[in-house]
């Protein structure tokens, strides 16, 4: 991935790579081959109510969700951030598990918080919320505030 690559941009001097869902795994595999041997962070943003300018390149269509992967090259002492758009009506994206096994828990967290499904993930279950929780808390249409607490251990209340 050379700097002249049109998909590479810079945000506050930090290298950002935009790619589509179709070439997400291929792009990350390319970065892995380019010594980016660690996936330090994988998270997502829900851009539902974002009012500002998302500073996307001209050829990238902004969708509601964006998966953000922070990669680190120990050899080159560099970081790269991959941003992928994920539409809400088909909130699925390939897993990075086979490239970075450490992404397993992070992808589970994104699934738990945003409801984005990682295909081929070995164990896509809720990680922070209870297993029977409804809704995805970090979505922007999930209200903050007084939500009735769901006690999964309250067996008497269940039929």
């Amino acid at each position, binding site marked *: 991935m050379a700097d002249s690559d049109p998909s590479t941009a810079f945000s506050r001097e*930090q290298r950002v790579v935009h790619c589509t869902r179709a070439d997400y795994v291929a792009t990350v595999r390319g970065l892995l081959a380019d010594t980016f041997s660690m996936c330090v962070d994988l998270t997502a*943003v829900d851009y539902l109510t974002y009012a500002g300018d998302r500073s996307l390149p001209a050829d990238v269509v902004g969708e509601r969700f964006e998966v953000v992967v*922070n990669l680190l090259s120990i050899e080159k002492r560099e970081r790269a951030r991959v941003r992928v758009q994920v539409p809400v009506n088909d909130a699925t994206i390939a897993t990075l598990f086979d490239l970075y096994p450490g992404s397993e828990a992070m992808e589970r967290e994104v699934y738990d918080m945003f409801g984005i499904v990682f295909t081929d993930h070995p164990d896509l279950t809720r990680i922070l919320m209870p297993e029977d929780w409804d809704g995805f808390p970090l979505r922007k249409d999930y209200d903050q505030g007084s939500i009735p607490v769901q006690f999964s251990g309250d067996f008497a209340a269940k039929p």
Partner: protein
Amino acid sequence: MTSSKSGILATIEGGNEAEQGLKPRSELTARELMREVGAVLRMSEAEVAKLGDAPDDPADDQTMIINMGPQHPSTHGVLRLMLELQGETVLRCKPIIGYLHTGMEKTGEALTYMQGGTNVTRMDYVSPLNNELVFSMATEKLLGIENEIPERAVWMRMLLSELNRMSSHLLFLATNGMDLGAVSMMIYGWREREEVLRFFQKVTGLRMNHNFIRPGGVAADLPEGWRDDVLRLLELIPPRLEEYDTLMTGQPIWRDRLQGVGVITAQEAMALGATGPILRSTGVAWDLRREQPYLHYDEVDFDVVIGKYGDAFDRYSIRLNEVRESMRIVRQILDRMPGGDYRIQNKKVTPPPRARINESMEALIHHFKLFTEGFKVPEGEVYVAIESPRGEIGCYIASDGSATPYRMHVRAPSFANIQCLPHMMRGGLIADAVAIISSTDPVLGEVDR
């Protein structure tokens, strides 16, 4: 006892013994280790619960799934491990987290950048100042003022960050000792940590959860007599560390409990995203203070402590020696602490001094605006990472130009580090599980956020 005809157990019963049996680690490829035949027990809690109802079959291969935690004293809070045991040997396990989840990232979206510090400081409650530091640095990068922070503020941040590393590692030494049965060590470690916290209390007003490092600088100047207090700490702690060496490092029981326990290779640690003392114990000299210097770490002299075997003993001795390295840095900070402002003189970010409020309407308005609405941060997104005592702590902020972060995510080092537990425990004894959990030094507050 388990006997079920579904999922993983069916594989075992289906005669796939060669794959399921414990091969020496050297014979397994990394891919095998990570996928189903590897170390992670990939069963949902419902599946496991069903196994409890299955009748005992004496002819069955006797593996057992037990829960360790969440209230086990050695799990550092509320970590639960689902362990698959064969006799006393741990086959696979799965860390189950979320018991301390309080939605801090969601809360962060409702707090202004001024208030955000109070939120992030509670994530890793053992090294709160490093959390505040990374949040402040991310905010400053979005504001574009990261190069305008006054020198005194930068050196104060370094001083506090290093003292916090010391207090965090001293707490690790205490809990590591207690987990392994060196109970008196617990008292000693807490005692020394308390000395450091007493200094924090004098500087910030609180022992923990300081909210002292804020976007634009720090909240207040160092108090009268701070230099003597730090010098006292630097005199007090080295002989105590010598005592720890006598009490633990050289003791045959201590070494037997830790050496060769919880081994992880550099390749595994990097694949799993482990950072900090875990990665360094495998011989990878990766310390962000050295490799991607922030603040003024490129101007001070210190060694990055690395291990060789990637075992629990290496992780113990790395942390012990990092306390010494931190003291070395603190000494240099004492020599170089400049005078001047402790926060940026930018009216849009920094509240006016108290005295100005009485005489200037402008100052009063700024003060009022800052504490009600907060300051606006330009659109954009940044990821900033620093070296916390536990590894790389990162802060990802997406801003929409308002006074609250649109999205605030903290990359918690413990969250990634505890994913190494299954790989460290595989094939080890259940008694060593406690030593291994302890050696990763997890703080569940930041794991669950």
